[in-house]
Each structure stands twice: as C-alpha cells, then as structure tokens.
C-alpha cells in the first residue's frame, strides 16, 4: 500500500485516510499489518488506487495456522 500511495502522486496516509473515512493512524496500522480492515474499507482503498482488492491486499496464514489475516500488500 505504501508503494501504491507513492505511485499515486505520493499520497499521504492522511490523504488516503480522508478519502476512505479512516484516520491516519489506522492507515498506518493497516500498512504495518497491525489491523485488518473491514471488507468495505478494503474495497474503498482498492478503489482509490484503481486496483482490484486482491492487488492491494493478500491473505496469509500465520506460523501456527491458527489465525488468518488480511494484510496490506507492501
């Protein structure tokens, strides 16, 4: 997502947050993999970049395989 922001005229986290209705801190948390956004927000973020949702986010299984997380593609 950082790369996508950079490619989108160096959009800031605050700008992206404003466009999708999130705070800058939540955008930072998504980029750092500390928060998995709702499907609605994930679609909105992908829409801002003009991408499909699977081009922005990917699903991964953690080491124990106990938890699943949707994280922002770096």
């Amino acid at each position, binding site marked *: 997502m950082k790369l996508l922001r950079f490619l989108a005229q160096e959009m800031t986290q605050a700008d992206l*947050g404003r466009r999708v*209705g*999130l*705070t*800058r*801190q*939540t955008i930072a*948390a998504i980029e750092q993999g*500390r*928060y998995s*956004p*709702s499907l609605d*927000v994930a679609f909105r973020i992908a829409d801002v970049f003009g991408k499909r949702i699977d081009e922005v986010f990917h699903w991964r299984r953690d080491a124990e395989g106990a938890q699943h997380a949707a994280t922002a593609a770096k």
Partner: protein
Amino acid sequence: MPILEKRAWLTLWTMCPVYLVYFLIQATYPQLTPTYLSRFGLLAIVAGLHAVGYIAGELVMRRQNRGEPLDRDERDRAIDASATRSAYFLLLTGMIVVGMVMPFTDSGWKVVNSALLFIVLAETLRVLLTLRGYHPRVAG
C-alpha cells in the same frame, strides 16, 4: 495518537489517582468523614476533581489537535467495543455482588463504596484494554 487512545490516557490519569485517594481515605481513615454529609462531600469533591481534570484535558487535547479528525473510525470502534464488552462483564459481576449479596451481609456506606469500586474497576479495565488494543505487541 488516535483520539480514543488520548481519551483513554486522559481517563486513566484523571480518574485513577482521585479515586485511589478516596478509597484509601475510606479504608484507612474513615474517622475523617464521620457523618453522611461529610462522606457525600468527599465523594462530591472526588467526582468534581475527576470531571474538572477530564474536561480540562479534553480542552487542551482539542487545542493541541493538529487537524486530526475527532471522529472515531472502524478500528477505534472495534477496539472500544471489545474493551467495553469485557468491562461490562466485570461491572455485571460487581453489581450482582453489591446488589444481591451485600444487602444480606453488609449495609450503608460499605455497599455504596463497593458499588463505586466496581464502577471504577470496570472503567479502569475498559481503559486498559483500549490502550492494549492500540499496542497489542507491547502489552502482550
């Protein structure tokens, strides 16, 4: 720092010290407040200090806010809901003890202070879980 996290810190720093002093006085020096009126007076002072501290902190926070939105987003709401759910069960347990058990074993100010203690504990738990929600790796 998200607005909800700032408010959680503000609640922690304004509520815990004043109620800690209140419960210490009630537990160790009950003779300082011998009458009902003096006990209500102490409680009013403590609640007033908490309210004034919180309002002053909120005003300072808003003044220092650098264009950050004051609304909560979905992450804030998720953290708040999770913390509130846990605190609710503590409060529920406390109210069962205070309202259904203590009337048969204790009376008067002990019941009042126990109810107040459970409210403060539940609110403290909610605040701590909110802070943990923003720093899951730091707080375990």
